[in-house]
């Protein structure tokens, strides 16, 4: 496996506040990586820094060997990194179908994901296609947000807090789509506060605290205690 996304020494600020302190992370082709951590650990800033929305002050982000650090957000999307933003951020003026179509705004040529394939993945989106995007339930809105990101046929899909504010049964339904997304050749980074969900889908897990990665490993290698300590910042040493 070769590294698709390589993040080295990434430092970013959120206003005057330094939110990331030299984060290193790699995502291999076909891999799913989970980033877990409490509120304010810097997970969302990391996602925003990768996609060009947050300002990077040092370090680099490379996609398939090419530097994309500090590229404008639309360029990064065009290069193949799409994001499902925290809070879903659907466009209220657009219908469900238009929200999906706008995901393909910058797309050139064909790819696996089409409107029909998204509507097959999440059939409710076909049924509700003419509703305003924001009239849907939280879970359905999350499906629109995932579908919208997939419409650009990304190499890398970043999912920020998919399960936030959703019922467990809905979270399960959303994560049930992951095998198909992986099969389409997309590599995934999920940011999660739901640790058990993260351990279930990921090939590799990183735990963040106060802007740093404090623990990394395969889900099978990491003990519950170690994750618990890294998550809450307890130090037994």
């Amino acid at each position, binding site marked *: 496996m070769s590294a698709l996304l390589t993040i080295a020494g990434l430092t970013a600020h959120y206003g005057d506040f330094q939110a990331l302190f030299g984060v290193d992370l790699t995502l291999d082709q076909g891999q799913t990586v989970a980033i877990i951590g409490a509120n304010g650990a810097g997970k969302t800033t990391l996602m925003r820094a990768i*996609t*060009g*929305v947050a300002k990077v002050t040092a370090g680099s982000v490379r996609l398939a060997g090419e530097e994309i650090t500090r590229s*404008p*957000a*639309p360029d990064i*999307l*065009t290069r193949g990194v*799409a*994001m499902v*933003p925290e809070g879903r*951020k659907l*466009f*209220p*003026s*657009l219908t469900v179908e*238009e929200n999906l*179509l*706008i*995901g393909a*705004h*910058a*797309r050139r040529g064909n790819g696996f994901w089409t409107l029909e394939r998204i509507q097959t993945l999440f059939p409710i989106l076909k049924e509700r296609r003419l509703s305003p995007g*924001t009239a849907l339930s939280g879970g359905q809105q999350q499906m629109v947000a995932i579908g*919208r990101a997939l419409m*650009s046929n990304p190499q890398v899909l970043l999912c920020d807090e998919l399960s936030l504010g959703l019922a467990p049964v809905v979270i399960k339904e959303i994560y049930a789509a992951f095998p198909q997304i992986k099969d389409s050749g997309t590599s995934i980074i999920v940011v999660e506060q739901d640790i058990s969900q993260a351990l279930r889908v990921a090939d590799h897990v990183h735990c963040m605290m106060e802007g740093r990665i404090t623990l990394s490993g395969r889900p099978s290698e990491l003990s519950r205690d170690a994750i618990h300590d890294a998550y809450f910042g307890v130090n037994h040493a």
Partner: protein
Amino acid sequence: MMLIDTLAQGMLLGGLYALFAAGLSLVFGIMRLVNLAHGDLIILAAYLILTVATVTGLHPFVAVLIAAPLMFGFGWLLQTHLLNRVLGNDILPPLLVTFGLSVVIQNGLLSTFTADSQKLTAGSIEAASVDLGVVTLGVMPVLTFGSAVLVIFLLNQLFYRTALGRAFRATSDDAVTAQLMGIRPQRVFAMATGIAMVVATIAALYLGTRANFDPSIGPARLLYAFEAVIIGGLGSLWGTLAGGIVIGLAQAIGASINPEWQILSGHIAFVLVLLIRPRGLFPRAND
């Protein structure tokens, strides 16, 4: 009989105000920018049509086909090089800059074309009329109103039926998330201002053939346009047409009572609508 005539004339006049307002409404709807130079840009377009018509000898209706793309380019450059730099969370800088632009355009026109009144001459069509039995309508006012309806219909189609329109709406909703979709808000804004200037050129054609114009009359056109947009409800294009008609009707009714009351009646109608419906007649649900 007299009343029907007054109402018909007022409604047709509303078409002209809707044309003044459509570009303003479009730009405000997409980038929340109140362009205080909009009236002066209409007058600039009128002088451009006049110049093209004078130099080439073309009829103003043909000259507008040359002026409109030039104004599109001007709007694009204006947005790219000036207005995009001042758009942000603070609403004051764009107001100050467009106010300054208004002053620059007025003085530029004054030194180039002098303060003499000008008019676009369209020939015999200006005096032509159609007799509908109950009421006789001028061909030019009917054309103006028809153009206003067509322009608003086309802008709506653009907004709700095309990929560009989707990008307009998405950027208006949330410019940061729009960038995550690969949309470049600054280009979207440049496109919107370009289109607004094409509409302003159409407005200028009817303004210039209907009455005299000189470099100083832009701000008054802005006021009518602004009132039409507010009456209609911010961000609603059909509302803008309705707003134009409300002002046109009020002016016609006021003028029929006493000619001095024409302008004042329009402004009073504006205040009355705001008192009864502070968000306008057709406010956008999610504003």
